């Protein structure tokens, strides 16, 4: 059964009009219809965080939202983070510097969470515990989180982490 729904939204600043099957989730819509494959699916039941995107600036699980629910909203995906000329965002730069990614599958979700954290902290320096709590909704099987935490500490931390 196909239940077509027209939607209008912006994705990474670009206005999009599309017709979606109502049961299609937002992550599938981004990946399949818009070919924005940087949003990854790791569990499709809302736990792993690989599909984290921003909806009107607030993080959300792309697998726990229907595409039709994005109607009228502004979505930001990993493809919208670096500059158009390819210059990396400082969060991305820091992740590379601190070896905060290995296989890279969880990385787009991690970046989106860190962008929201930066926005929410409103310039306040964060403790390592606060950073670890903020990242706890993004599973990573490769890094043991250390490189990710170190990257966030460098950018948002109240103290620089020990260089190991």
């Amino acid at each position, binding site marked *: 059964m196909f239940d077509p729904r027209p939607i209008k939204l912006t994705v990474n600043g670009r206005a999009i009009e599309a017709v979606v099957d*109502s049961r299609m989730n937002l992550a599938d819509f981004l990946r399949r219809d818009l070919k924005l494959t940087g949003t990854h699916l790791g569990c499709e039941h809302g736990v792993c965080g690989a599909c984290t995107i921003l909806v009107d600036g607030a993080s959300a699980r792309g697998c726990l939202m*229907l595409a039709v629910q994005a109607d009228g909203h502004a979505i930001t995906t990993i493809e919208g983070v670096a500059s158009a000329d390819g210059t990396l965002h400082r969060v991305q730069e820091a992740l590379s510097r601190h070896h905060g990614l290995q296989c890279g599958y969880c990385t787009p979700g991690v970046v989106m969470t860190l962008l929201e954290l930066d926005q929410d902290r409103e310039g306040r320096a964060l403790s390592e515990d606060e950073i670890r*709590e903020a990242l706890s909704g993004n599973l990573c099987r490769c890094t043991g989180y250390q490189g990710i935490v170190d990257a966030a500490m460098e950018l948002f931390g109240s103290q620089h982490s020990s260089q190991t």
Partner: protein
Amino acid sequence: MKAPAFTYHAPTQLKDALQLLADLPNARVLAGGQSLMPMLNLRVAGPDHLIDLGHIEELKALQSVEGGVLTGSMCTQRRVERSPEVGEICPLLRDAIRHVGHQQTRNRGTIGGSVSHLDPGAELPVAAAALNATITIASLRGERIVPFSDFAQGYLTSCLEPDEIVKQILWPKAPKGAGTAFLEFNRRPADFAVVSVATQIVLEDDGTIAQSSLALGGVQGAPLVLDISGLSGARTVHEGFGEDLLRGLDCDGDELYPAEFRLEIASVLIGRALSKALAQARSVAHV
């Protein structure tokens, strides 16, 4: 793991949503979707119609009122978490919401969705039980107001009829000098609770306990309110109070967390929560 087919409805008025709910067979209401969407993806839920409440503005209210804090059922958990007023008027709700999921799910998860779903591991129903929050239920037939004690009936089961939804919840204002605590046992901080305790204590001017309430999650299908009126007049909570309180209580259990274990944890958490709430009430009194 893709959702099964359904027909999607996006009413903008509450009455339209209620009409759809009354008319359509095998319909389900979509609130924040943080529980329903996994169920759809896993195909353990298979509604023919999905009624999205996300476009109904009147359900999104968050306001302080005479008796406390009023949350529309579609008010997000994140808004409640970030509201300074909630912390002042209803500190137990603030305490509880800090334990709910991750920010990515609190951004979309709603107060009404969590309270209606009644997952035994969810925090908000336990807080609602301890405070006996007031639930306004709406259907085409009209509105009715029920205390949480009548609302929650068992495992994932509320008193909602198939044509009804939760419209709003009134979280009672904490009396002056109240101390609160929400504690939970889980394996990782953001997980659903295995066992949770919500308590609110109010002191007399002389430092003795005037009123107290306490609810437990994770021991029975629905949040369990325990009678701790025996504490009235006391100044402290004696060691073993939790154990005494729970003696002989029927408790659910499974292989991973057997009843015996849950009761042990519950008695520990009760002791700790009461101590914390008492200490907080005292510190408020001394300000």
